[in-house]
């Protein structure tokens, strides 16, 4: 059973990301959207939390916030809305950590 974990809150304002990563298993994917994308800034304190996880981020939310791709944690997959749908479709469950 694979799970898609969706985080939409800034890791610097809420603990959603911290709880979520504690629930991420080997087969799971973490998708960062809305203010959740701030976790993907490589030089930020929250970046360490993403280590070892399969992580994707919504490209349009990164762009809206002025986060350039070269500032991101290495290995993050940037997806568009169609890619978001694909992730939902290819995983068995979706858990949104609001």
């Amino acid at each position, binding site marked *: 059973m694979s799970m898609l974990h969706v985080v*939409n*809150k*800034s890791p*610097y*304002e809420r603990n959603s990301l911290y709880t979520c990563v504690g629930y991420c298993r080997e087969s799971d994917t973490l998708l960062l959207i*809305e*203010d959740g994308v*701030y976790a993907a*800034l*490589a*030089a*930020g*304190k929250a*970046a360490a939390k993403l280590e070892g996880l399969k992580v994707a981020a919504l*490209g*349009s*939310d990164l*762009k*809206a*916030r*002025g*986060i*350039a791709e070269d*500032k991101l944690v290495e290995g993050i997959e940037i997806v*568009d809305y169609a890619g978001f749908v694909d992730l939902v479709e290819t995983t068995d469950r979706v858990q949104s950590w609001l």
Partner: protein
Amino acid sequence: MSEIKKFMYVNRKAPYGTIYAWESLEVVLIGAAFDQNVSLAFIDDGVFQLTADQDTSGSGFKNFSPTYAALGDYGVTKIYVERESLEERGLSLDDLQQLTWEDEDEDYAEKDSIRLVSRAELAEILAEQDVLFNF
């Protein structure tokens, strides 16, 4: 006209996840029209409001970030950014918009509006204000 007061707007939220940042900007612009001594502070996720190159074309939001560049024309020339908040988020001044104002006392010389300050320095600046608005 009554005595000029020191107004400080404290911004602690990221720009698009909630409406706080935009609302703050609107209130700042209205307040600036009343010739008060206005300052802005950006703390915690508020520092994300000032990032350069915001492009909302793919997400359906209104990109209000160019409005910060107009603050100088409204006489808002003191924009304090807290160093600790920037560093924790992996940002530096280079990641932010350059905001300037024209000093009419010095032949309209262009000066930087953003002042990078420590938490301790900002605490002192907050303590000097007459009115604090929090967003």
